[in-house]
């Protein structure tokens, strides 16, 4: 654990009264190790290190804590600050219906999260309508329909016949949603690789027509170094508004959380903590910071 390691280092630093370049280097090395073991992206770690060094050598050090304790506190605060910095609740449009679109890599948990999100917004008085634009994965439509039905929410069937003229199909969907008074429209999309230009372009076009208030990047908490590449590509090519991190019921440290927020600048609004619809929580930056630090 990072705190254990820094405490051990405290013995070596005992008697020292302020953070110096020398003892800072040791502390930073330990922090780097902890972050890399937690799957934080290498470059994000180096940037973070620079920020910590700057803070630790500054004014704040003249307190009663030992240098090691001071570094731990600065690391924890800085981490929680980055993770929670942009924190906002789920965005809705002032002119309903709001559209919430879920995007991300294959298997990250988008379809399951649509159900969770629907249940959550219903809990704050909304009437969600669910739709899936995944016409490729076998039984994708059926998967979302089953989830919607089991939760008692309406499901709009998007067929390949309809999608033959996508602009019309999407406009028709928006009209249908507005006429029935549904709000928000929760849109599931097919998983795709950020390096698949054709599919990324398809997603960009869909987003342009739907004009969503939320484009949510659904990311798997066990993602390793690649987390920055995929998240950044989705941010640059599609544009994101927020992030949902899934599968935090596992024991992955979840360093991807820091990587994704650092590189996209978008806030994590919710986390998935299980397969069932109620396994859904509002994101807590301090808890995530502790988890990453081990």
């Amino acid at each position, binding site marked *: 654990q990072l705190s254990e390691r820094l405490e051990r280092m405290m013995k070596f630093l005992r008697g020292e009264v302020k953070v110096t370049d020398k003892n800072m280097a040791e502390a930073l090395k330990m922090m780097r190790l902890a972050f890399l073991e937690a799957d934080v992206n290498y470059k994000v770690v180096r940037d973070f290190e620079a920020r910590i060094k700057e803070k630790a050598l500054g004014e704040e050090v003249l307190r009663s804590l030992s240098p090691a304790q001071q570094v731990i506190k600065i690391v924890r605060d800085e981490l929680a600050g980055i993770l929670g910095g942009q924190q906002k609740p789920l965005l809705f449009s002032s002119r309903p219906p709001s559209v919430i679109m879920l995007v991300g890599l294959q298997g990250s948990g988008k379809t399951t999260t649509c159900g969770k999100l629907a249940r959550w917004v219903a809990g704050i008085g909304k009437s969600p309508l669910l739709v899936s634009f995944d016409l490729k994965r076998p039984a994708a439509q059926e998967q979302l329909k089953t989830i919607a039905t089991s939760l008692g929410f309406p499901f709009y069937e998007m067929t390949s016949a309809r999608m033959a003229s996508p602009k019309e199909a999407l406009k028709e969907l928006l009209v249908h949603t507005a006429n029935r008074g549904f709000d928000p429209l929760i849109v599931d999309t097919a998983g795709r690789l950020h*390096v698949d230009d054709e599919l990324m372009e398809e997603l960009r076009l869909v987003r342009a027509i739907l004009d969503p208030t939320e484009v949510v990047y659904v990311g798997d908490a*066990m993602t390793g170094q690649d987390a920055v590449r995929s998240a950044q590509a989705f941010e640059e090519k599609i544009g994101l508004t927020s992030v949902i991190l899934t599968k935090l019921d596992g024991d992955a440290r979840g360093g991807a959380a820091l990587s994704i927020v650092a590189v996209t600048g978008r806030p994590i609004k919710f986390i998935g903590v299980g397969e069932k619809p109620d396994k859904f929580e509002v994101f807590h930056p301090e808890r995530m910071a502790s988890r990453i630090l081990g």
Partner: protein
Amino acid sequence: LFQSGKRREEILDGLEEALILADVGVAASGRVLEALRTKTRKDAGEADLERALKDELAAMLSRRADGRPDGSGPTVILMVGVNGGGKTTSAAKLAARFKRDGKRVMLAAADTFRAAAQEQLALWGKKLGVPVVKGSYGADPAAVVFDAIQSFKAQQGDVLVVDTAGRIHTNTNLMNELEKVKRIVVREHPGARLESLLVLDATIGQNAIPQAREFLKFSGLTGIFLTKVDGTAKGGAVVAIAEELDLPIRFIGVGEGEDDLFEFSPREFVEALLS
């Protein structure tokens, strides 16, 4: 002389960074670099060091290279792993591959929990012309496997690929459920060769290692099926897994279609890892 020493450390640091960026992990990268330090000459240049590293990694990943299931039956292949890794799709790929090789293939849809899981595999079976044994939604997966084995034996099948539900390896109940499924296979078809493949998403970081440990403990593992290698993630965590658990990588998934399957090649993988 001092200059070349500094240069060597710079090169080695660069190689270590490349390994970390590929998800090999800090600890495993350190160990591989240590082996490299002792095995290479002090005056080895950058090209030599890089080649030595690739040789070292390829050797680690080549242990137990022979022994990949080839469908000479009867073989039961259990697809296990955490949620969303690609088990169902990979089951379909294996079914397609063995059918193309002229084997009698069957699929068992033992994910009775997730919405539309059995329908997903049933559609694959329909597309490939491979029979799929299903159960009722919410039924005991062991019951589906039991039925599948009886059918498999009756039809004298060569390969039965069993798709299981995704599960988090720290959920003891679900891991016990998997162990029960395995026991059913062993009990009902003792003559069959049992392959247990951990389906691992190449985008996963260090958590792949505890996953491999737990699945090895509960379902036994004979190999790894590494998926989504067509993305940008390198899947380097398999290096630490090979080192610690001596598990061979059998197949890699390179896409969403039934033909997007390759037999694992250590050399090619290591080249891509460091590219």
